[in-house]
């Protein structure tokens, strides 16, 4: 009887302990980032991992918006959970009106089978107001059924509050390709930063992230073996 009570107690703690709500309910806990290179992800079990693929790059230059869609083939299994990633590249200080950029980003949500949108950008201090406006303009352009995610520098999730209140469901701190001396934190205080983290298979972490959802980057095209190895690593953390 006693072991039963102990197990029941543990289960009660596990299930009743207040966890932050999953901002992407029903989505896989692992996403592979598929960048602009030929990627064959047909080996992925759609229930185990989703595909966050670079769908387009929106360039902001000289007051105008230009779009370079994905040109490299992406292959995925039927039923794969697709997240369209849009990279925003400001290429001059003369940024175009935010609504034009938002419209170009929103088009990626219309790609067939895409279930979520992720916006990837870097923002200097002076560009933050612009991105705030852009994301505000983006949300109503995208169907309500499509959640919007964004990537984030770790500094935005550490000692910086500028992302608070942005109309996105999550901000994914990128725990790789950081500056010298920077060490990724294990947890982040802003609620937006707590659910997910971005890691790379070529940069082992000193401490595993506590985020429940991981986006995994590979500097080379994914193969089944690199995916399996990444998954083994991730399972050690959770």
């Amino acid at each position, binding site marked *: 009887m006693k072991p039963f009570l102990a197990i029941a107690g543990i289960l009660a703690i596990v299930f009743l302990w207040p966890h932050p709500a999953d901002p992407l309910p029903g989505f896989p806990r692992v996403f592979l980032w598929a960048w602009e290179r030929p990627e064959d992800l047909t080996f992925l079990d759609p229930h185990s991992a989703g595909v966050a693929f670079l769908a387009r790059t929106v360039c902001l230059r000289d007051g105008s918006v230009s779009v370079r869609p*994905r040109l490299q083939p992406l292959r995925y299994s039927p039923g794969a959970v697709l997240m369209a990633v849009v990279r925003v590249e400001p290429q001059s200080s003369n940024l175009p009106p935010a609504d034009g950029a938002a419209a170009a980003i929103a088009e990626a949500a219309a790609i067939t089978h895409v279930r979520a949108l992720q916006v990837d950008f870097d923002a*200097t201090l002076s560009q933050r107001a612009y991105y705030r406006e852009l994301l505000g303009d983006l949300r109503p352009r995208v169907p309500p059924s499509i959640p919007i995610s964004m990537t984030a520098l770790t500094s935005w999730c550490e000692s910086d509050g500028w992302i608070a209140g942005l109309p996105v469901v999550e901000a994914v701190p990128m725990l790789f390709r950081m500056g010298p*001396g*920077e060490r990724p934190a294990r947890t982040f205080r802003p609620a937006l930063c707590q659910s997910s983290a971005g890691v790379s298979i070529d940069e082992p972490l000193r401490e595993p992230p506590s985020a429940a959802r991981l986006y995994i980057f590979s500097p080379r095209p994914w193969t089944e073996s690199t995916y399996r190895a990444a998954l083994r690593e991730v399972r050690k953390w959770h």
Partner: protein
Amino acid sequence: MALRILIVLLILAVPLELPGCMQVPEAVFHEKTFPAEGTFLEGQLGILHPSYARKHLVVAYRYMSGIRLNNAETEAISAWPPFGPDEEVWLAARNNIPGIAPIERIDVYRAVQKEGRYYNYINCNGDAFITAASTLERARSKLYAKDWIAAQDTVFADCSQGNAIPPLASDPQLRSDRAYQIASAKFYSEQYDEARKDFKSIAGDASSPWHVIAPYLAARCLIRAGNMADAERELQTIVANPAMAHWHASANGLLAFVRLRLYPEHRMHELALALVKPNSQATIQQDLTDYRRLFDQDVRPTENDDLTDWIVNFQAGGKGALEKWRDTHSLAWLVAALEYASANGSGPPDLMAAAAAVKPDSPADVTVNYDRVRLLPDNDARALAVRLLDSDIPVSARNQFRAECLRMARNLEEFLRYAGRTPVGDDGMPHDDTIDDDSAPVFDRALPLALLQQASSNPLLPAKTREQLARVVSIRELLLSATPDFAAVFHLLHTPGDEPIVLSGYGRLTTDLGELDPLKDNWWCAGSSGPPHWTPPDQRPPEAAASFLPAADRQQAAAEWGKLAAIPAAPDWLGAQALAFAEKNPRDPRVPEALYLVVRASRYGCTDEKTGDFSKRAFDLLHRRYPANEWTKKTPFWYK
């Protein structure tokens, strides 16, 4: 209270601004995958490495085989392949017509999404827009101009999506143009069989201005539909037809495209032969692209050719090249054989003799002598390297010979003489001489303070390195002192760029010593280990690299390094010094500012688990003892 302050700090604190997409510039002294100098294309090959991209190896092979690039070939290889559609040309012409509602943008990409695939391709190429603009020039004064433009808008709308087809023309004058527009719309909307029928029909209509180009476009329909074999036959017919001479160049280009896919092994052999033909400026750019593409796909030519054999062998390290060189006595194979020999530490006498006989005006002279330096006994190698350094060789090659001389340094003077390097590449940084990773750790760990002091005024070293060493000596003296002078500590609190570490390359990104670095490269980290990436993994340990030093100097350096390694992270050390001074000298006017600077250091410096304690102690003391001081007002938080 403290927790509340910390939470507020985490929420509100604003960091220094990081430029978006910022890349930390890294000094490069020779490139690993491509030649650092543009003179490579003129035949100054410098030191050739197997890691070079195949494009450069093709160029090197040509020069080593006596097949120079002429100016037009050089220009063709250097130019970027044409990219990007010319829709602006069309839009400018179209939007200039009175009464036509302007169009801002045409999306030329069409998405493919079926059966678990997703990608986009450029559906409408630049030629289409240029042709449309020139046709508009002919049509603009005609009554049917607006009708023609409306149909052309439909055609270009199909570039990105849809399958709209313009209606048949009611105006007889427009009939030929409209037939062409209808065929084009079918082509862009991926109705290739239908489009092909239409183009065939146009080809048979001698009255149509489009009847000459139509066969070419009918062949393109076959390519788009994936019917390469039929496309090849039709394109060969076009190329054989003198009446279609105007389209021969385009048809030949498409033929190459088709043959690349139909017969990759055979095509690779053709390309390898074509790439070593002189005066190939008309084809070399596309041939080089196609050849590399096949290489990347692991295609191998049907028949052996020397260029492909050499590239495969050289990139694999030159194993077996010796026999090939003995058979051919060619310069390219000599280089490959030397690459293998130098990597394995020994070269047979006949190979070494042939290497020694290479003339200074040979394109492979620098490469061959670099391998000889790595193979000869130190004394001979040193003399050869010095001779090369006295000659006119590319900067990147000079850096590599200096590295070899540094490796063979017999004394401190030689070490200092060859430590300096000149950055290369187009990174936008000032290319002042500095030091590389093969000497920085030696300065850092293996030279005692007394020798560092001497080196800091030795003109054999670059001026920038001398200045850096002088600062390092000064900070190390302070750190190693039993009773650090507070004036020096106070100064150090103001200068986050002062580090006790000898840095290679460009050093600290923020050059102003008094400015905080946005990447937290401020002062030093615990264990004097510097930034995590600073110890080069492929170098000898510094102590071994400094074996030329007397034992007493090496022991002294090790003792000093041991003490430095035990010093805590800068914010902790500075905090301990400032707090101790503040306790003893509460009325010293510098104390409030010093406490403020300690808190600042705990925010922007390299921290450890004790840093928060120093930050809080400085914060508490500042607020308790100097509540109305201006520095206290500037210190609303402490940092963990």
